[in-house]
């Protein structure tokens, strides 16, 4: 059997993608390596999910289960406990090798949707010196222990990095009776959402230390302490500022990186800014038939946007074979490239299909630094074709903007986005 669409990953992006592709009439299969659908949402028991989509403050599992129920009601097949080991592209289709309790199996699909999410940066990736005792966990690992296994990973805990999962775990462990000695952030400003700074730290009197970092780890079997130092403007530790804090746990919340091992094996072109694939307004990578969505595409902070991105990938993959018949429109002339200038860290998608120029498209962007009142502008051939004002922009808070391209007079081969502070 040849599937129209194989979705790899059963988190919020993959679920939304599979549902959307099925609704377009495609033969869909979803592959998930864990025994249960829902992805990381299974362990995100805090609330605040779905504010945009459902106008409710749901917990992660509630949000996921709404999609899982729809997924099952559409009778979409899913292979659980199944891991993709290799993908090969041939002229017409993709061969997907999997390992599961049934052994090794090869599945064939016309299109692929990569919904593999993102991974946490580890202690090794932030190069902290010292021994490697038990008690050093990423925030997600600590969250798995606490929320799924019902095990307390910490009594006296230091948190490095002010990413959202770290802040949420600070509150979670505090609720369960741990001492949270402090959150240390190497940068001069917090990297989590403002409301998490308030409801996770301030509400529980957990101190936040900016421009400070962990420089060393102590302990043999179990962590006994960490060394903290202040950092200079270049984020280098300042000699003489070191102090030791006794603790049994260090939790790392130092960033997320899109997971794209499979995309890379297919030689998909990656964007060094997002660390995900370069995609067009159909969520398609530059390898025809390979689509990317959710946190594998770029790291989101709201699940509502992850679902939206999955839906686009699912709809596009289903329509891809029916409408585009594969290779026909591979030439660069069919796309307009999206470029960025000024205060923007990135804008996605990175390319607009020319056939989408009469549509309303959703763009997501992140700014490079915190700015007050700012203006986003889209410029085509030297002319501003779209403008939107923001009260304030912060790098941790991704912005979503809908642009009606039919009203924007776009000419040439590129659309340039600019973000600048409005001078008072």
């Amino acid at each position: 059997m040849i599937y129209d669409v194989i979705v790899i990953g059963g988190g919020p992006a993959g679920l939304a993608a599979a549902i959307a592709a099925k609704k377009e009439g495609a033969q869909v299969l979803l592959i998930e390596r864990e025994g249960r659908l829902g992805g990381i949402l299974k362990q995100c028991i805090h609330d605040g999910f779905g504010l945009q989509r459902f106008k409710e403050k749901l917990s992660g599992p509630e949000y996921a289960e709404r999609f899982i129920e729809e997924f099952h009601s559409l009778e979409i097949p899913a292979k659980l406990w199944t891991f993709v080991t290799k993908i090969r592209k041939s002229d017409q289709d993709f061969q997907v090798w999997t390992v599961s309790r049934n052994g090794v199996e090869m599945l064939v699909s016309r299109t692929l949707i990569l919904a593999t999410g993102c991974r946490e940066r580890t202690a090794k990736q932030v190069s902290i010196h010292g021994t490697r005792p038990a008690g050093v966990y990423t925030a997600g690992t600590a969250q798995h222990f606490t929320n799924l296994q019902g095990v307390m990973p910490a009594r006296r805990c230091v948190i490095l990095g002010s990413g959202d999962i770290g802040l949420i775990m600070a509150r979670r462990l505090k609720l369960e009776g741990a001492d949270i000695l402090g959150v240390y952030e190497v940068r001069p400003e917090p990297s989590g959402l403002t409301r998490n700074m308030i409801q996770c730290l301030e509400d529980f009197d957990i101190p936040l230390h900016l421009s400070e970092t962990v420089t060393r780890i102590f302990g043999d079997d179990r962590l006994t302490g960490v060394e903290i130092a202040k950092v200079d403007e270049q984020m280098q530790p300042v000699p003489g500022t070191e102090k030791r804090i006794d603790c049994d746990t260090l939790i790392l919340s130092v960033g997320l990186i899109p997971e794209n091992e499979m995309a890379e094996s297919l030689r998909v072109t990656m964007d060094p800014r997002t660390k995900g694939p370069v995609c067009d307004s159909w969520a398609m990578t530059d390898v025809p038939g390979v689509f990317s969505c959710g946190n594998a595409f770029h790291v989101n902070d709201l699940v509502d946007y992850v679902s939206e991105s999955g839906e686009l990938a699912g709809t596009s993959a289903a329509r891809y074979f029916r409408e585009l018949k594969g290779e026909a429109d591979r030439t660069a002339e069919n796309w307009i490239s999206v470029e960025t200038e000024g205060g923007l860290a990135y804008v996605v998608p990175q390319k607009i299909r020319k056939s989408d120029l009469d549509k309303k498209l959703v763009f997501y962007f992140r700014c490079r630094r915190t700015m007050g009142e700012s203006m986003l502008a889209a410029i085509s051939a030297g002319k501003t074709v779209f403008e939107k004002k923001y009260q304030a922009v912060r790098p941790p808070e991704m912005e979503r903007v809908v642009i009606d391209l039919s009203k924007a007079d776009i000419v040439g081969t590129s659309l340039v986005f600019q973000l600048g502070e409005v001078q008072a």
Partner: protein
Amino acid sequence: MKEFVCITCPNSCRMQAELENGQWKVTGNKCKRGQQFAESEMTCPKRTFSTTVKTAWDSVPVIPVRVSREIPKDKIFQIMEEINHMTVRKSMGRGDVLIPDVLGLHADVIVTSSVLKEYLEENNKENTYMHKDCAQEGGNYE
């Protein structure tokens, strides 16, 4: 005058509140919800929160729960205490009420995942205890 940040929506307005003739005068908010948040924050700050509750089954040792609506911030640890004394010994799924009207605060503690219910249905285990310590309690299903 008190300064704080509104957490109602991602705008995160930095607001100031001052008591004037028994009324809170709020500045810095961009919408009406900010005024409401400020008043509540000044008189009785309210929050929602989530945690887990222990179950009697090893394969699903805990299930997630949350309060169904906002409760006074200073009651969080008291509710935690209540939940931490409980063990779920029957099938419960998403939306089921674990503690109705907790501490008389007009909010329920509700289960937010069907993971246990599905596990028990799939494995037909509703009538067997997996935990040793629960069996010793004289398990009411045995």
